[in-house]
């Protein structure tokens, strides 16, 4: 084993980014590292490259335990990294970039002739013959990416980490970079490949490891894992809480509260139609980048819709900014709590009353005693664990921060609340409490739009589930149609309605070549015809 990670744990205030993760990398393999946002991929990589120091666990490279404290130290140990955004200096020449910091010297001065020769030799190994005196910026992104790889390999030479290296490349360029990567594998390097593009994972990698919520979920040979199973691993069916296995009671058709027609924004979400009933919970399912958050941000006016309209019973709604959306009785607890949710240096009290105060306007302050009353009330009702309302919210755990953000909106008494990944990165106890809270809110007649990567969670709270893929709302499932397998087939692009037909258990086709149709194995508990897919799920950028 080239690289071996055991029980790797990394904690940040409020969250456990990695929880006792194991990971093995063989020499001469390409190993994919997969997971949704917040799964722990980048934390794992940063622990390997010395950007973070682990809190517990061991990392052994060729049998020797290592603990790099900087990227330079990691490089010297043999671990090199290439990032999505090329990490080179565009205004220097190719040769300067390749040998930056390691220039050949003669009498203390840089020997540019030797440097040019060395650079040319390095690139020749990758089948590249180009003028090394060119400015890097004049090279195509693919060439730049290969130069970055060449540099990383020459500096480290044992382990190569590729973090979303293909995100800004076209198909031909990807093939070119992949050729280089395969070549390096054959030379005996261990390669970690991080990507959201499942096609590329199946095309390139030998094994894959899935992380979710900071935990190791599975490591398998890529060739023996089928696509639906992989998505199941990524989206998770993990929590063994009672709440998670119930379905919300079906209370029949509800009076309509909101209707969105042709609602969309170019480059973010294709126009969609969506009805929300009073007291209804609509769930949005899909992979990272499928348009879930983009739909929510359009509805809440953060990235206002350019087409279509939103109506309630009294007429057309103006949702061109968060303030307007709030005036329409909306609330939004965003996915990224730290950057979009909490105001870290303010107290819990101030965070709770922030939206309320913003709506009243600055000139009508909420009396201090009233603020304290509201804060204490919600701290008690939502069981927020804190020493008091004046504590800085940044010092709370993730679950408690999320409860404060929820309290902020509940204090507004909205009629429609959007929850984007309400339980991401919070511990199991708080998780169940937040799901209970959602049930309570619905009992009180509030309508909710819930986005979650945890399918069990989504099924447990949603009356109806909209499935998204490629920035489109592609399916709506309600009542008996809602089940794990149907949702996952819809996400994977296998036609959702179950057709009767031959069931070939365990049949898996070879990993597909680029953009070729993918054969999909049947899912155990819901037989489905093995059928080709013309529209495979492709991830585009982050959410």
């Amino acid at each position, binding site marked *: 084993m080239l690289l071996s990670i055991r029980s790797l744990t990394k904690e940040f205030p409020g969250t456990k980014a990695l929880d006792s993760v194991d990971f093995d990398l063989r020499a001469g393999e390409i190993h994919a590292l997969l997971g949704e946002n917040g799964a722990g991929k980048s934390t794992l990589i940063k622990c390997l490259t010395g950007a973070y120091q682990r809190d517990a666990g061991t990392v052994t490279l060729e049998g020797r335990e290592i603990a790099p404290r900087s990227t330079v130290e990691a490089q010297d140990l043999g671990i090199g990294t290439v990032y999505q955004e090329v990490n080179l200096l565009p205004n220097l020449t190719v040769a300067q970039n390749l040998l930056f910091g390691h220039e050949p010297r003669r009498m203390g001065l840089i020997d540019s002739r030797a440097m040019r020769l060395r650079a040319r030799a390095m690139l020749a190994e990758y089948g590249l013959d180009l003028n090394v005196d060119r400015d890097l910026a004049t090279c195509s992104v693919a060439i730049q990416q290969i130069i970055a790889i060449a540099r990383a390999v020459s500096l480290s030479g044992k382990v190569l980490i590729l973090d979303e290296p293909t995100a800004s490349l076209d198909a031909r360029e990807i093939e070119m970079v992949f050729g280089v990567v395969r070549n390096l594998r054959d030379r005996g390097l261990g390669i970690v490949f991080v990507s959201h593009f499942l096609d590329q994972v199946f095309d390139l990698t030998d094994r894959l490891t899935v992380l979710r919520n900071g935990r190791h979920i599975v490591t398998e040979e890529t060739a023996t894992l089928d696509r639906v199973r992989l998505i199941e691993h990524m989206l998770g069916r993990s929590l063994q809480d009672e709440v998670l296995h119930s379905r919300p009671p079906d209370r029949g058709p509800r009076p309509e509260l909101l209707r969105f027609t042709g609602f969309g924004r170019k480059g973010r979400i294709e126009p969609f139609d969506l009805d929300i009933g009073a007291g209804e919970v609509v769930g949005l399912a899909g992979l990272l980048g499928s348009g879930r958050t983009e739909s929510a941000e359009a509805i*809440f006016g*953060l990235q206002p819709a350019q087409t279509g309209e939103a109506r309630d019973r009294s007429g057309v709604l103006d949702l061109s900014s*968060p*303030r307007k959306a*709030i005036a329409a009785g909306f609330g*939004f607890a*965003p996915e990224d709590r730290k*950057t*979009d*949710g*909490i*105001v*870290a*240096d*303010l107290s819990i009290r*101030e965070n709770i009353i*922030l*939206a309320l*105060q*913003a*709506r*009243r*306007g*600055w*000139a*009508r*302050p*909420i009396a201090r005693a009233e603020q304290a009353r509201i804060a204490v009330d919600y701290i008690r009702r939502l069981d927020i664990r804190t020493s008091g309302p004046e504590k800085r919210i940044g010092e709370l755990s993730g679950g408690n921060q999320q409860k404060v953000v929820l309290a*902020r909106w509940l204090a507004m008494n909205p009629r429609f609340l959007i929850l984007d990944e309400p339980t991401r990165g919070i511990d199991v106890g708080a998780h169940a409490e937040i799901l209970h809270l959602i049930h309570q809110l619905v009992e009180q007649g509030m309508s909710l739009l819930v986005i979650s990567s945890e399918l069990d969670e989504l099924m447990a709270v949603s009356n109806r589930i909209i499935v998204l893929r490629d920035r489109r709302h592609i399916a709506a499932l309600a009542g008996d149609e809602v089940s794990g397998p149907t949702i996952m087939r819809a996400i994977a692009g296998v036609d959702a309605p179950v057709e009767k037909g031959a069931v070939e258990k365990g049949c898996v086709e070879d990993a597909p070549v680029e953009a070729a149709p993918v054969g999909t194995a049947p899912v155990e508990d819901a037989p489905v015809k093995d059928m080709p897919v013309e529209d495979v799920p492709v991830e585009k950028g982050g959410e």
Partner: protein
Amino acid sequence: MMPQVLTRLAPQLIALVVLMGLVTLFYPGFLSISYSDGRLVGPMIDVLKRSAPVALLAIGMTLVIATRGIDLSVGAIVAICGAVAAYMIASGYGLPLALALALVAGLAAGLWNGVLVAVIGVQPFVATLILMTMGRGIAQLITEGRILTFTDPAFAFIGSGTALGLPVPVWIWLGAAVLAVALLRRTALGMLIEAVGINRKASAVAGVNATVLLVAVYMAMGLCAALAGLIITADIRGADANNAGLWLELDAILAVVIGGNSLLGGRFSIAAAVIGALIIQTITIGIRLAGFPSEYNLVIKAVLVLVILVLQSPRIASEYAFWRQEARRKREAQLKGAGR
């Protein structure tokens, strides 16, 4: 409530008192105040009066810095507003119109900065650098490159008059500070500004109108600069477009920082920043009174500021807390040893 405010202001107050003590060592008459001709006279009164421009600027600068911004153009705005007022007076428009137009000029300058920062999204440093460069030019155009002098006793009163025993500039900056604190802390403005400064995106999601708030903060800064410009111009009875308010933006930023306000935005204290302005002025006047040759002034000033800032830094504070804890532990260990 009150003890909290005192804890917040303690480092600045201690620094000010220690400085005053130091100056008194070299110049025993520093703290003496006498009453003659219906006004208070003494070096400390001078400090209070000379602090006016920087104290006024520090009020606005505290708010700008609380929003994670900075305003480098305030010195230039001082020059513009002084020039506008002097031009109006010299052209015979009368004092009320002259004052009003100078204040409007300050607000307009702030609006310009605010729009660049909040609406167009230029980094505050760069956005205000534009007006810093351009503003002095505008002032020179208004004064046509000359020092525009005037003889209007009513206007001069703003800079060098006395009311109720104290120089008028002292009343102006005291009044502005009290007004600002009341406006910010008796309404929700202060909290909303802090929220935007700490996390603009999250504040916007919560419905805070961050854009309008930011523009308003830069306009308040412009207004403070206009007041400072009026005082400076009235004091010398002339508008000097080249020198009025020159480098004052740096003193204002320094006052805010001495006041313990983080340049990364968020929680702010206007009172602490104003005390910071007093500290700077005490150093400036104190060095002169203490009899150091004038060429030492800037170096001594810089060293004193450095000492104050280092003593305030969180690292020193935590070291001090650690050291005290260790000392206590040692004492307890000794007591235990003695007990056995």
